[in-house]
């Protein structure tokens, strides 16, 4: 059992999400940085289906009610266990009654805490993820919450520390053309992939709102709503693109100019308001 002493700015339980329900309007959701979430599970020997805690901008404090194996991955944060500094990307033993404390990351946004056995909150449509758009799944963590530990443990972990590159200073996301590139002005793709962009404060698990040059439309008629994917770069009438993340809506009514390649979505999930980024054509 883990007791939440402080959640930080936002902490939620996340797993691989709830795919398969899009036709009835249910977003996939799940960990925003899937690579970090998966690594956290591997470091404590969990099955891939186990749920972790996604801490946004650090500040998370948990107390282990019994001796527990944990790992912290994602945005690199100062970590302490029972008051002593401990590394990220490594299995850590938290003795019974001791605290695991995440400081504030200097770079990156989302850190993941895996606990051996997985966080066991009630499943909703096969997933323990909190979906900030649809409201499905558990409420974000609050001080005083008690998290049960499940039985999603596999083999004993054997890795002492995983080599992980820190988030890049100058992030570049690779993009493929989207299905509605022709709905934007001919230079929109060029501007997207050559100019600089800034993450606006109005960004969350649903998506990153980006400021930069205004991307002009080539067509003014209305696009009937169509399906969205994580990484879709949609351009609303104000010309400021939105890059969709884990809790993106199932459908959208504005043209999708580009799609970030799946391998770069974890990098996108670590961007925070004010961060600058670039896009590069993947081919």
């Amino acid at each position: 059992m883990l007791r939440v002493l402080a959640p930080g700015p936002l902490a939620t339980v996340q797993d691989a999400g709830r795919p398969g329900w899009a036709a009835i309007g249910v977003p996939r959701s799940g960990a925003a940085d899937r690579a970090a979430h998966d690594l956290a599970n591997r470091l404590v020997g969990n099955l891939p289906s186990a749920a972790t805690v996604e801490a946004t901008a650090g500040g998370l404090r948990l107390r282990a009610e019994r001796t527990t194996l944990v790992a912290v991955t994602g945005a690199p944060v100062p970590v302490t266990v029972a008051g002593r500094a401990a590394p990220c990307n490594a299995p850590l033993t938290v003795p019974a009654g001791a605290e695991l404390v995440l400081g504030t990351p200097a770079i990156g946004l989302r850190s993941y805490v895996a606990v051996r056995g997985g966080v066991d909150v009630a499943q909703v449509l096969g997933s323990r993820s909190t979906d900030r758009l649809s409201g499905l799944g558990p409420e974000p963590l609050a001080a005083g919450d008690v998290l049960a530990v499940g039985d999603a443990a596999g083999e004993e972990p054997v890795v002492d520390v995983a080599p992980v590159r820190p988030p890049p200073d100058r992030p570049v996301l690779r993009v493929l053309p989207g299905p509605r590139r022709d709905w934007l002005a001919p230079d929109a793709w060029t501007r997207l992939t050559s100019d600089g962009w800034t993450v606006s404060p109005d960004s969350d698990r649903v998506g990153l709102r980006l400021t930069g040059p205004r991307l002009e439309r080539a067509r003014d008629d209305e696009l009937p709503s169509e399906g969205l994917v994580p990484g879709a770069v949609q351009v609303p009438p104000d010309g400021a693109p939105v890059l969709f993340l884990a809790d993106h809506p199932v459908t959208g009514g504005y043209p999708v100019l580009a799609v970030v390649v799946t391998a770069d979505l974890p990098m996108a999930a670590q961007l925070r308001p004010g961060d600058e980024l670039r896009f590069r054509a993947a081919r």
Partner: protein
Amino acid sequence: MSDRLVVLPYGDRALLVEVDGLDAVAAVRTALDHDPLPGQVDLVPAARTVLVLLDRPPAETDSARLRRLPLTPPAGDDAVRTVDLPVVFDGPDLSDVADLTGRPVPQLVEELTAAELTVAFGGFAPGFGYLTGLPEHLHVPRRSTPRTRVPAGAVGLAGPFAGAYPRASPGGWQLVGRTDAVLFDVDRDPPALLIPGTRVRLREVR
């Protein structure tokens, strides 16, 4: 009906099938429900498209197979589910809709309850179904100013569609009534009452 089917690239895990209308969307959706592509993890039917989500990069063989999909639903397919949706017709926009469609309220209600509707697709929120099949003279524009809060159970019209809000949300549809039907329940299988392909009749209750 035209037989146009275009497969559009959509990143490295999806393909977008574009067709000309809702019948073809239903045909594509039905075909892929019954005989999925290898690694198909989700389908998103919409007004003119079906998004096919995969757990791997799409291959040229996928596009080739999608281009051969039928554009008319197979005759005598699955027994179609029918839902009777009980509606109290007392929505705040009922008289506006009556004015817009040029018929008195009782006649409007009669025509709405006579319409044979079908859930074409979902997408706005969990359990929201876009119902098609309204006669053309009942197509009304959205409200010029959307409401910041539409209560759960509200039944509304917008363009060619009717729909019922599973939970409170902002919305710009013209509200003609309300239903107490449970539109979405995570403990039910399927969780949504109005899944694509379901036939729906609005039944007037007082």
